[in-house]
């Protein structure tokens, strides 16, 4: 994919909001422009390339949600926001790993580079991870059907062909079983459900 260096911030944000193939275009640009910088934050603070890949993926997930939900303030700048989210996510990860040495190194300078509002976003990211873990726990087939229907907005006919179902009715039944199973998982995690529900209500 050939990407223009003059891809403006407004175009990036518009493409993220549009989703689909336009989101891919914006992601492609951000990956080629900022991945190296974001990776270096992890690498210079005791992380390895795998850590960087995980944190950067979470960062883009959080950033895209932030833009799509209308919580991104343009004046913060895309690069500044990504930089700040990665740094804060990595600090959170280090805290989780309880590595005193790493923590010392990362706070050596006595301050964090933090774009305003990022700490609130970090809380949201933690909630997103909880929600995602519920979804990840249902079967592969169910995940594929639900994503095709709710995220990719494919028609039942297209999903039927993609997932190799004999009829639309069989697919429809399967889809509701999958959704029901997911709802039951959410319901079964009382604390999780409460925490997520509060997070959604606070949006």
């Amino acid at each position, binding site marked *: 994919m050939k990407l223009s260096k003059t891809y403006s911030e407004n175009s990036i944000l518009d493409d993220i909001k549009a989703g689909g193939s336009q989101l891919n275009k914006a992601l492609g640009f951000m990956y080629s422009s900022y991945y190296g910088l974001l990776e270096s934050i992890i690498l210079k603070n005791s992380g390895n390339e795998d850590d960087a890949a995980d944190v950067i993926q979470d960062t883009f997930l959080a950033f895209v949600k932030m833009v799509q939900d209308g919580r991104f303030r343009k004046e913060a700048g895309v690069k500044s926001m990504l930089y700040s989210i990665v740094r804060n996510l990595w600090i959170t990860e280090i805290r989780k790993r309880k590595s005193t040495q790493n923590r010392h190194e990362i706070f050596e300078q006595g301050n964090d580079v933090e774009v305003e509002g990022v700490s609130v976003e970090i809380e949201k990211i933690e909630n997103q991870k909880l929600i995602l873990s519920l979804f990840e726990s249902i079967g592969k087939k169910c995940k594929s059907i639900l994503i095709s229907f709710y995220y990719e907005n494919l028609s039942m006919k297209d999903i039927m062909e993609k997932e190799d179902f004999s009829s639309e009715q069989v697919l429809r039944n399967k889809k*509701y079983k999958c959704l029901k199973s997911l709802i039951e998982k959410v319901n079964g995690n009382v604390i999780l459900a409460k925490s997520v529900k509060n997070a959604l209500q606070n949006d």
Partner: protein
Amino acid sequence: MIDDKNITRLDAYLDNKLSEEEKNLLLQELKENAALNELLELLKISRESIELGGLKNQIQSVQKEYLKIRATQVVKIKPSTWWIGVAASISLFILIGNFWIQKLPSQLIEDNYISYEISTMRSSEIPLSVLENDFKNKAWTSILSAVPQNSENQSEVFLAGIAAYELGDFESAIEYLERVIQLNQDLSDRYFHDEAEYYLSLSLLKLEKYDNALVLFEKINLDENHIYHGIFTNSDLLKLKVLTWVKN
């Protein structure tokens, strides 16, 4: 309450696919039926999880593709090729002309500028809230008035440096930021050192002091422990070298 019929109705409601009559009936039921309300919340969370799952998949596949291409490029670029590329780039820069050269400094700053946002200030002699609020409110003049000329507090002097930068007074910004670096030399706690070097490099660039800016660009780029390490690309360094060469 978790039955197919209610799930179907609520799902259609969230998709705005109910007729006006069905919708009004459901809204009435939701008012009176706590369990149905609970199911609606559960459904919203479930749909949110599906959306996140889909988004994660999409991001994952872009990331996978990017890393695959990057790995190929790293393998392909041999040292000799790299230098040929640099030499070719230098030749190209020379040919591009005056207009492009004039745009370079502002482009370098635009590409690499990360605004400083205050988080937690420590060990400030001025009450924290005053500086913090002034900074958040972009009251740059107030910050400059509040910080004494002879302050030996790195945090304060750094913020004054940023305030001067934001006001476009790059001479003063350089003075403040150099002072932060100087103060750190005499102290064991090196606060705001990396930040001062980063914004100093940009201030120097603004004043076309390319030689000095280049020293800092290279330092930041070489020091893997620098907070801003990785922010300047090899291409940025090359551009700055061209500016230095043209100016001299």
